[in-house]
């Protein structure tokens, strides 16, 4: 121990004295140049690492003198710090290091060791030692500056060796850093192992070695990974989707027109330009013109049937208009309409002033009560989860906007209510993925098909956000059973999707076994936040013109968003006031639901019975104001074309407007929806007579 300490002192002394003698460190001692030759002991120390040639010190002197004159290095370093640093290095390199030695801490000042230190023959050998031992020397600012010079000094003697070692470090001219100063020591002390560790990353050395090593090293591969994914996704969607999705495409298709929209700033073109263009997305809506249902309604409006004034007019069986209970409501309105609207105390401000956009609380309470009344009080609904809108269309649009982003998709079992196409696609830009149901299953939901549709959508890279079902099913009129609803919830939970349940015909069930989604969600420990129910007062109350839709959601976030969006479709207060009174009249409402259900059931039996006599079979329905009839025996070719031909014949020859299955996206041609509730009982024979004409001509031809 004492021997080591002696050596330490010795080295310390010699280096300090040699540095002090330098004319550049201490210009007053200019004559001390050249400094005393390195003491033998010092050489001995360094020889532990390698054999220094005597010649080297001479060469370095020469090189230095030639260089010193044009050197403009500033002396900003702390000499004692430098010395301590050097000493520490010596100790380590020569394995004399002992923790008990009084090592000064790493210098707080950055050390820029100017080339003049090269004069001491000790230093070159030191550095060389280090180079030798660590295959790829770790960075240290002064190293780089020294080694830079060093190459020139030793170029002749050890060209191959140094050039190999120093080259990768030439561009590194970073600011010295106290932290980095201590690093070379650790690396060199760790010996060969550290050297090989560094070797591994040599190709990325410039990137990952610095301070941001961890950050860059993780961000860059991550970014690469993401780009790769993005690239793959794009390529895939391009291959599999020749026509891009509707909403972006509408703008894209518009693009070629843009040049026509030239808006140059030049005043020279003051001549009238082309007409101002509408937005691209609205062009798509404009073009989505005349599907059979719209044509049918138009035809009906032009030439509506009336028993007295127009007995040969078109009979409307295409709109789910419920006139069964309208007498009752009409009478109620005549009696109570005025009081209902103005209230008891005739408070005008209740209807003229601004009201909450999402509906009056009184109406929400009344609607919640009515909804629970319609399912015989099986569940009670919470008024605070209700948002009122102008009609079920607005409710569906709003829900789809809140749940899905543009380009996402909903799974919808077919045949489905034709308006979903407009409600979901137009402004929300949501895709509909049809899940075909077949007549063989009675058009009930097929989970294999559902699963298949889901996985296919996933393969295409389309995000499926939910399932929309109608309960009672809209064109078919059947009721999904308990098991189907539970399975559906399980499926949604498994795939992490939302369920939108369209229950607008809840009060129009005439068969047994209706089960609301709310009941199912209530009864078991499902994640209810994925269940949303759409309801409407139009169909059940025969109040189609009132246009009141209801969103009932178990998801607080969706309710919050829908409440804010309700500003775009709020119901006018006179209507709301009227409905509050109507719905609060529980005696009337109970009576109304009972009578209208009875009437509906009777009408259904009568209508389907008559159809059966004509040889047209219907799917057994227990809800809704319509029946789903199989007329595939009457179509000439078993295809959509044949179906539309028959529809055209029904409309123009028989003057009956019905809904063909193809616009409900039914995959089997030949199915038609007959909304019989728009008729009175006396009109049924007339409809049958007209139908008979068509069936006879079809049969005679075939």
């Amino acid at each position, binding site marked *: 121990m004492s021997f080591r300490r002696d050596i330490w002192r010795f080295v310390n002394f010699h280096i300090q004295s040699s540095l002090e003698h330098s004319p550049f460190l201490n210009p007053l001692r200019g004559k001390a140049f050249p400094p005393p030759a390195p003491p033998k002991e010092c050489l001995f120390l360094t020889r532990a690492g390698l054999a220094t040639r005597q010649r080297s010190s001479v060469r370095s002197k020469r090189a230095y003198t030639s260089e010193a004159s044009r050197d403009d290095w500033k002396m900003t370093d702390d000499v004692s710090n430098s010395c301590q640093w050097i000493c520490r290095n010596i100790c380590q390199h020569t394995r004399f290091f002992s923790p008990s030695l009084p090592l000064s801490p790493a210098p707080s000042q950055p050390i820029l060791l100017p080339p003049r230190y090269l004069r001491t023959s000790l230093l070159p050998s030191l550095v060389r030692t280090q180079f030798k031992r660590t295959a790829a020397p770790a960075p240290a600012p002064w190293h780089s500056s020294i080694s830079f010079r060093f190459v020139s000094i030793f170029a002749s003697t050890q060209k191959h060796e140094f050039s190999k070692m120093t080259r990768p470090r030439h561009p590194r001219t970073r600011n010295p850093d106290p932290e980095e100063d201590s690093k070379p020591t650790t690396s060199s002390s760790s010996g060969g192992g550290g050297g090989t*560790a560094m070797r591994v*990353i040599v190709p*990325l050395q410039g990137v990952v070695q610095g301070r941001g*090593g*961890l950050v860059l*090293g993780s961000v860059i*591969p*991550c970014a690469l990974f993401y780009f790769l994914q993005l690239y793959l996704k794009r390529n895939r969607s391009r291959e599999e989707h020749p026509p891009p999705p509707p909403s972006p495409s509408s703008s894209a298709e*518009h693009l070629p027109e843009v040049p026509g929209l*030239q808006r140059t*700033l030049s*005043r020279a*073109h003051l001549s009238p330009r082309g*007409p*101002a263009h*509408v*937005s691209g997305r609205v*062009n798509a*809506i*404009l073009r989505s013109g005349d599907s059979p249902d719209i044509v049918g309604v138009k035809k009906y409006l032009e030439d509506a049937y009336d028993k007295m004034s127009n007995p040969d007019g078109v009979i409307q069986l295409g*709109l789910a208009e419920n006139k069964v209970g309208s007498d009752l*409501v*009409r009478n109620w*309105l*005549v009696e109570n309409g005025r009081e209902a*609207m103005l209230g008891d105390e*005739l408070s*005008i*401000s209740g209807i*003229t*002033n*601004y009201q909450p956009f999402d509906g009056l609380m009184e109406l929400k309470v009344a609607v919640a009560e009515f909804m629970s009344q319609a399912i015989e009080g099986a569940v009670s609904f919470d008024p605070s989860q209700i948002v009122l809108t*102008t009609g079920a*269309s*607005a409710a569906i649009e709003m829900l789809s906007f*809140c*749940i899905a*982003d543009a380009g996402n998709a909903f799974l919808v079992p077919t045949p489905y209510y034709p308006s979903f196409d*407009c409600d979901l696609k137009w402004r929300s830009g949501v895709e509909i993925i049809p899940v075909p149901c077949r007549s063989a299953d009675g058009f009930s939901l097929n989970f294999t098909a559902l699963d298949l549709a889901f996985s296919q959508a996933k393969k295409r890279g389309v995000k499926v*956000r939910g399932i929309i079902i109608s309960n009672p099913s809209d064109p078919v009129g059947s009721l999904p059973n308990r098991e189907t609803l539970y399975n559906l919830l399980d499926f949604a939970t498994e795939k*992490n*999707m939302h369920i939108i349940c369209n229950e607008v015909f809840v009060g129009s069930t005439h068969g047994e076994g209706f089960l609301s989604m709310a009941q199912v969600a209530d009864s078991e420990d499902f994640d209810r*936040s*994925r269940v949303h129910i759409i309801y409407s007062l139009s169909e059940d109350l025969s*109040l*189609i*013109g*009132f*246009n009141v839709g209801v969103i009932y959601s178990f998801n607080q*976030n969706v309710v*919050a*968003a829908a409440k804010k969006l309700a*500003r*775009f*479709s*709020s119901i*006018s207060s*006179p*209507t709301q006031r*009227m409905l509050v009174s109507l719905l609060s009249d529980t005696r009337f409402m109970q009576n109304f639901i009972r009578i209208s259900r009875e009437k509906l059931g009777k009408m259904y039996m009568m209508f389907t019975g008559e159809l059966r006599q004509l040889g047209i079979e219907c799917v057994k329905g227990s809800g809704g104001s319509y029946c789903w009839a199989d007329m595939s025996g009457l179509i000439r070719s078993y295809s959509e074309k044949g179906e539309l031909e028959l529809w055209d014949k029904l409309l123009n020859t028989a003057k009956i407007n019905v809904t063909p299955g193809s616009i409900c996206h039914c995959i089997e041609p030949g199915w038609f929806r007959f909304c019989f509730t728009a008729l009175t009982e006396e009109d049924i024979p007339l409809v049958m007579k007209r139908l008979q004409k068509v069936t006879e001509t079809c049969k005679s031809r075939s």
Partner: protein
Amino acid sequence: MRLVVPLRGIVGGRGGLILGTFVPCALFCYLHIRRLRFLATRRVSERAEPIAKAEESPYYVGLGRVSQDPFDEVANPNGIIQLGLSENRLCLDLIEEWLSENLTGAMIGHGGDKRHLGIGGITGYQPHDGVTELKEAMAGFMSQVMGGEISFDPSRIVLTAGATPAIEILCYCLADPGDAFLVPTPYYPGFDRDMTWRTGVELIPVHCHSADNFILSIAALQQAFNQARKRGQRVQGILISNPSNPVGNLLPQKTLHDILDFARNKNIHIISDEIFAGSIHGNEEFFSLAKILDAENFDKSRAHILYGLSKDLSLAGFRVGVIYSYNDDVLAAAKKLTRFSSVSAPTQRLLISLLSDTSFIGRYLETNRKRIRKMYDIFVSGLKEIGVKYVDSSGGLYCWVDMSGLMHSHSVKEELELWDKLLNVAKVNATPGSACHSIEPGWFRCCFTTLSEGNIRIAIERIRKVAEMHKSSR
């Protein structure tokens, strides 16, 4: 690699690079998938999220506060006085009188004939964009409101559930997501929601200054347009309010001509929000866009007028808005889009009767103007007394008040502090100019038509207190 000494055990070894990249990547992916999986049903869609969490501008915060603690002379004399909602309650007695006389007839049919169009018309299917009778009545009403010189074509009218969806539908029809509208500031705070939320359209403010009496300058318009083009943004139109909403001034004929010229040169649309056309109380002449278009041979297909019954007929709760467009494509599209926001049939029935009663409407409009004028005079003289400046306006149900004298410094922050002081200390809810995107701080919009004369004095008194507090603190 040295730097990662704390993680040396993992990244220092031979597999340093692999582990050092794999671990953060895996962590990142894991968190990402977790987030998607577990938040998917809780969360609303990405586009609905900003709407659900919409940051409340002072305009909406103020309205919310008032609804919690409304002023009432008897029941709650320390409540907040509402000066933030442009609602007209001055002529409710007239409407009430009419309704009590005619309601039954309007709803059920005239002369007590129960089989008349009445209830059948209410309960059956209606065209979403409004029944033709109401459109005709509305066209008549609009021309009556605008002085009877202009005639409106009922087939160019689309009725919506309020002016809010009317603006949204127009925006949707005229611009694609990312396109922009130029809107002169200060503008109605609701535009931010109506025009941008679902349509994805952006609003570019065109600043007007008090020095110009807040009249739009074409140079500013041109500049904003050029800047937008430089950014690569497509400007699809200009939205002007006439009478201007927070300020209450009317656009001069020349400015309207200039704006039309500008729109034609740039081939952009022009939407004129004339919802306050019937609430003009000054002597200045009001020039509707329709009037300008009638007079000259402009390309009309780029002009669209917004109207509603909320302000002029004091029927805010009825939710009736009007799109009057000269562009056939826009009309066709808007008609289709009204399926999402149609006016319910009972309201339509009622309005047909109300609007067809031209003698009542004439009387109503006349009285309404007089009463607004009276209230304006009272309010303005009160402001003069306490030494607060305002813009002389001749339209609208509000006054654009310069309260920068009550602020310590000229900044938006100070303005909001003053607003806060008015709301919480003085208990008066006014709309600060920053909510209207006014570029000059210190302006407030005060609507005076929801109050009675006595309450206006109370409101002025409360503002005076704030002014005195300011003086004493200085």
